[in-house]
């Protein structure tokens, strides 16, 4: 994984913005996906009802999480699936390692799972001498590039096809300078076919786990989860505790929303159900908490656990589109990542809730109606109270609050060259002022409205 730690979102975003044509390209690509989503959503007159239904199903799940999890576990065990529980990332990774070790397996194929990204499973297994190959095409590309995914649905959306050609040339032996997507895809297909045929262990994520039946559903466009899982002798499925839905009949609601929101397709190419192991093979499910129950306990933020990881909030977010996924320095980037990450480490991710204009577009596209922008606002309050805000900012804010609490100070401040704005963002008119770098300062008028109004009143009397 490339090392982006130590820098904050504004710093990383400023680096990303040094190449403006690239920013434009990134922005346009994601906006195109957002538009595809709009077209699909508008085709369904019942879209808003679907969102509301999904939201309410998830509310029910979060209110009865332990009941549904236990029900799921019991049914899964009945189906012959082995269930493990992991309190955190470390425990999850150890369970995976142990399962492989027991069978003497040192090579595994993996299909897309943001949870394993969150747990840094690949790095952990690498340290244990286990080779992991990501089989989702986008994931494979960033893996070869030694980078983390920049988007939860489109992991290598930040890469242009020419760059992918270079990576494939270096690692998979395609011709130098080859950038035809068809040829590159074929190269990857040949490479992955060999992987699918030779790996004895496959790991997948879980999109939906159905309490009623103990089965789970994985959605992919490439069929790579199926290919891995069907050919391996052990299938390990990693799921966060929030992936539960109560009944099978609820699945239709989510499947209709998920891919329309994600990529603007009516449904994923493969929505595969896994219920019981084939003869001679084993299915293991690892149910992972990793901070989720803490978030569940934070009343203002528990709603974030409704997320079905469609990525729509990223595609619509103007900040994400213009700063790139890596600027969020966390596994789940964008608006949803910015409300999940501070739960895991408030200090490390104190910058993320501020990486937003609170425009609210994320909350509007969210298929499960998470009030993302309100949670961003609330995280800001928590982060400041916990003391993770720069001292200079706190001093400025206190001075501003003091001035604005007193009409006298406000007026005299305004008169003296509108110095009240000394404390406001668009402050001093010099080269050091971040406002002034790309924008002119507002012109100062002769008199304020308040002054004009007093004069008018006097004149009238």
């Amino acid at each position, binding site marked *: 994984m490339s090392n982006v730690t130590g820098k904050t979102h*504004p710093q990383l*975003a*400023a680096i*990303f*913005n040094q190449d*403006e044509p690239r*920013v434009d390209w990134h922005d346009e690509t994601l*906006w195109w996906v957002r538009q595809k989503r*709009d077209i699909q959503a508008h085709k*369904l*007159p019942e*879209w*808003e009802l679907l969102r509301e239904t999904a939201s309410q199903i998830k509310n029910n799940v979060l209110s009865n999480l332990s009941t549904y999890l236990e029900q799921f576990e019991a049914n899964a065990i009945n189906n012959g699936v082995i269930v493990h529980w992991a309190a955190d990332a470390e425990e999850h990774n150890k369970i995976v390692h142990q399962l492989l070790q027991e069978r003497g397996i040192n090579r595994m194929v993996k299909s897309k799972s943001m949870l394993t990204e969150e747990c840094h499973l690949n790095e952990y297994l690498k340290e244990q001498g286990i080779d992991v190959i990501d089989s989702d095409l986008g994931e494979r590309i960033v893996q070869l590039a030694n980078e983390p995914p920049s988007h939860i649905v489109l992991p290598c959306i930040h890469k242009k096809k020419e760059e992918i050609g270079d990576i494939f040339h270096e690692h998979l032996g395609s011709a130098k300078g080859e950038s035809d997507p068809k040829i590159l895809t074929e190269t990857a297909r040949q490479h992955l076919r060999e992987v699918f045929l030779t790996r004895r262990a496959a790991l997948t994520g879980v999109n939906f786990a159905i309490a009623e039946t103990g089965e789970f559903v994985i959605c992919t466009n490439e069929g790579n989860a199926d290919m891995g899982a069907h050919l391996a002798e052990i299938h390990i499925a990693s799921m966060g505790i929030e992936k539960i839905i109560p009944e099978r009949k609820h699945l239709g609601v989510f499947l209709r929303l998920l891919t329309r929101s994600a990529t603007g397709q009516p449904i994923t190419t493969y929505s595969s159900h896994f219920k019981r192991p084939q003869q001679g093979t084993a299915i293991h499910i690892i149910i992972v908490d990793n901070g989720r129950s803490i978030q569940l306990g934070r009343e203002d933020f528990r709603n974030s656990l409704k997320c079905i990881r469609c990525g729509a909030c990223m595609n*619509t977010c*103007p*900040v994400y589109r*213009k*700063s790139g996924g890596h600027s969020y320095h966390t596994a789940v980037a964008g608006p949803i990542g910015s409300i999940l990450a501070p739960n895991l480490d408030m200090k490390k991710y104190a910058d993320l809730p*501020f*990486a*937003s*204009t*609170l425009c*609210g*577009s994320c909350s*509007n596209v969210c298929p499960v109606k998470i009030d993302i922008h309100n949670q961003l*606002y609330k995280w*800001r*309050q928590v982060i*400041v109270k916990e003391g993770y805000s720069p001292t200079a*900012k706190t001093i400025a*804010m*206190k001075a*501003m*609050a003091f001035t*604005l*609490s007193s*009409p006298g100070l*406000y007026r005299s401040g305004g008169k003296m060259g*509108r110095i*009240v*704005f000394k404390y406001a*963002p*668009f*402050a001093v008119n010099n080269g050091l002022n*971040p*406002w002034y*770098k*790309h*924008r*002119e300062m*507002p012109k*100062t*008028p002769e*008199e*304020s*409205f*308040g002054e*004009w109004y*007093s004069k008018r009143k006097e004149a009238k009397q």
Partner: protein
Amino acid sequence: MKVALFVPCYVDQFYPKAAIATLELLEKLGVDVHYPKNQTCCGQPMANSGYEHLTKGCNSLFIDNFSGYDYIVCPSGSCTLHIKEHLHSAEKEEQATDIRKRVYELTEFLVDVLNVKDLKARFPYKVGLHQSCHGLRGLKISQMSELVAPAFSKPAQLLDMVQGLELVPLTRQDDCCGFGGTFCVAEEAVSSKMGKDRVDDHIEHGAQYITSADLSCLMHMEGILRRQKSDVKVIHVAEILNHSHE
């Protein structure tokens, strides 16, 4: 009907013309407008930066200034939204609740309360309408492109009553301009890029003026336009609606 005019601090200090236009427009429409003179700021700059706990003084002052009116009207969606969502007071919560229900952004007041059906304004220019996010997604003064629902726009409905005015279409109907309060300096790189792109959309469609119900967005875009030495100007929607109004 007793109406209080709430002029946000930055409008008072930098854009008095927009506030004057708001006042004149309301008066011409027969409204009895009062301007409580001790008003300062709604507290949003602090609150959005994570310092909502420092807004007690502002809140208390706001309540003292704006209690007892039938309506409070403000030429800014963003400040109106802040009051609507966050005005609270341990000592005067009843009054705060009352104010939260009575505060209106100018265009929603004109459409929903005054039921304005025609205006005598004239503004013979090509105008781009910037849907400020807080007005749009917060106060819902227009339909949002993300939702599946019938289209409407209160500012556009009013602008349509202005003689000679041509509203230009935009490629991205309701993208954010990147102002975002302290975001505009804390995230200077992304913020200014967002502003540039927003302005470009208007320019590409031939707008001579960019208007909005929010001056904070306009201030941001004006900063960018002036840096580019562009001829395109920003103008608050109240100034258009009040233009050549007999």
